[in-house]
């Protein structure tokens, strides 16, 4: 399965959009936080988990999804939110805690909900799997189309919720795909110290379902494997477990000194940055022109700038609205 030219363009556009957004956020994040770094301050307070470097997983998977499909993501959700088509203005406004945000500022960067495109994320490890499996069940029960994809980190595959949800999806043969982003770290703890197996795809055997490992942080390889899994799920053949090698270029969250990284790791990661790699391949192998890509990059920059402007210009929520929307 290879992506069409349009799909390739879509993938590159979304990778660049996500990267551009995060680069911008990472600058704005420090506003109000210098000279003294205090997470509570500035226009974007709180923890900030960037996904730079992990864009291939988001686009390789979400290229196969439409708005009616369901995605649950993690504490590191921006790349997937973008690839799933979450409204960018409202998403950025939510990250800024504004009244115009997806949830009027109640959620923040770890709690982005966009029911229009069936996207949600959350802050507890492996928490999204149950809801994704349940959405898949909902579709199966009603005979409605739609596949549910849950993203999680490699560290999350050691959380009990992962096991329970995988077994449930398998025993009920639901239209569900589990995608593990293996960036080889859970905060400061390497995968080798926390996961008894080198690759989590072997865990598919525990549920009698197919498992695949995709090496190389390669959007095209991910596209192919995810495409088969999602087609399989749509066909009623049940769930698949996919683990994708990827890298986080930034720290676990902003402010992370990354002292735990072995020497040279960061340099190697930047040298393998998937965006320049994809760019080079689009030019060399897929007949894209430099102009086309420059235009896509410019469009991404403009789109991000507009979203940031929207967020900055938006009003704060009314403080007392904190007390509303507890119940439906």
């Amino acid at each position, binding site marked *: 399965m290879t992506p069409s030219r349009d799909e390739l363009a879509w993938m590159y556009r979304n990778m660049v959009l996500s990267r551009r957004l995060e680069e911008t956020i990472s600058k704005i994040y420090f506003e109000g936080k210098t000279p003294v770094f205090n997470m509570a301050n500035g226009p974007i307070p709180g923890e900030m988990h960037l996904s730079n470097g992990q864009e291939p997983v988001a686009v390789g998977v979400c290229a196969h999804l439409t708005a009616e499909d*369901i995605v649950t993501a993690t504490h590191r959700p921006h790349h997937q939110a973008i690839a799933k088509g979450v409204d960018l203005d409202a998403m950025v406004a939510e990250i800024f805690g504004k009244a115009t945000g997806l*949830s009027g500022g109640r959620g923040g960067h770890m709690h982005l909900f966009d029911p229009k495109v069936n996207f949600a994320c959350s802050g507890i490890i492996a928490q999204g*799997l*149950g809801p994704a*499996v*349940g959405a898949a*069940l909902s579709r199966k029960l009603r005979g409605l189309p739609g596949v549910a994809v849950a993203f999680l980190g490699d560290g999350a595959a050691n959380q009990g919720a992962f096991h*329970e949800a995988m*077994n*449930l999806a398998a025993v009920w043969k639901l239209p569900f795909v589990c995608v593990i982003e293996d960036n080889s770290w859970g905060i400061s703890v390497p995968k080798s110290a926390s996961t008894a197996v080198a690759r989590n795809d072997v865990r598919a055997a525990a549920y009698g379902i197919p498992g695949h490992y995709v090496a190389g942080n390669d959007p095209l390889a991910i596209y192919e494997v995810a495409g088969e899994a999602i087609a399989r799920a749509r066909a009623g053949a049940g769930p698949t477990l996919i683990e994708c090698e990827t890298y986080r270029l930034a720290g676990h969250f902003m402010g992370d000194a990354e002292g735990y990284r072995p020497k040279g790791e960061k340099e190697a990661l930047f040298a393998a940055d998937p965006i320049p790699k994809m760019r080079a391949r689009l030019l060399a192998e897929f007949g894209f022109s430099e102009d086309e890509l420059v235009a896509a990059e410019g469009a991404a920059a403009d789109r991000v700038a507009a979203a940031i402007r929207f967020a900055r210009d938006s009003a704060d929520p009314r403080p007392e609205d904190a007390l509303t929307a507890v119940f439906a």
Partner: protein
Amino acid sequence: MTGTIVKSNERKLTIARSMAEALAQEMRIDPTVFVMGEDIGTLGGVYGNTRGLIEEFGPERVRDTPISETGFIGAAVGAAQDGMRPVVELMFVDFFGVCFDAIYNLMAKNIYFSGGHLKVPMVLMTSTGGGYSDGGQHSQCLYGTFAHLPGMKVVAPSNAYDAKGLMTAALRDDSPVVYMYHKGLQGMGWLGTEPGATVHVPEDSYTVEIGKAKVVREGRDVTIVSLGIGVHHALKAADTLAQQNVSAEVVDLRSLVPLDRDTIRASVAKTGRLIVVDEDYHSFGVSAEVIASVVEHDLSVLKAAPVRVAYPDVPIPYARVMEQFCLPSPAKIVAAWAQMAA
């Protein structure tokens, strides 16, 4: 039930049957309602509250699950957000520790996190209570634990009439409702049962409003506030007190969230005295909340210090003599009055 005149030919149901009836009636009119849990299918629920459902609605809508509470309660949240109305059963409330994240961080908070753009119309049924020597991991009430955390409504019926009406209301609510039923009221013979819980239940569907307490016995001298099985202890104590010429009013909370503070306050304003009866642990729970809700509102209404009759702050022992020593009872309520009046 005191206060309800039951004609001799009227149909009486156990709480178990009235819960199952409410479920069946909603499932008939609303195809999005479905039930999941351990042993709720073929077995009809360990406590009988799903009996008959699988026969009528089949194993897709009445779905036995693996022993994976985090998985299937999390799944219920996802299904609820996707347009279904799942009902899930946590077989014993004591098991909440294996799956509370799905309950209190997902089910209870996703409406808020979505800024109100999502509904989470689901019901979590769970059994509570001891008294039959099932040991410390199968006998707890944990009312306070659930009621303390925001985002979920919490109800606890004391009789079959309320049980049906609260279930129907919960099924129609767009917010998550935790439905806590006490094993000692359920009407399952093998657990014994409080006869007062088995009352007349109309066949037609009806709702009991979530968040409204009920004065189930009127009185002048003391207000006894309770929920679940405690209401029956209170009513029995009130009978005893009546023989001593003490007129006790009994308030059945029915809902913990929202808590009907107005009804509690009005009753205490009338009687001037308050006893709270709770099978949940004594400290940091329901009994303190009821007392605080009264005194912070108006200290002057109280003529005597309020008294709690609650479970002591110890794990629940197995041996009958020990467990019975710890449980609230009519006698302890009468003793609380004596202490108060002294």
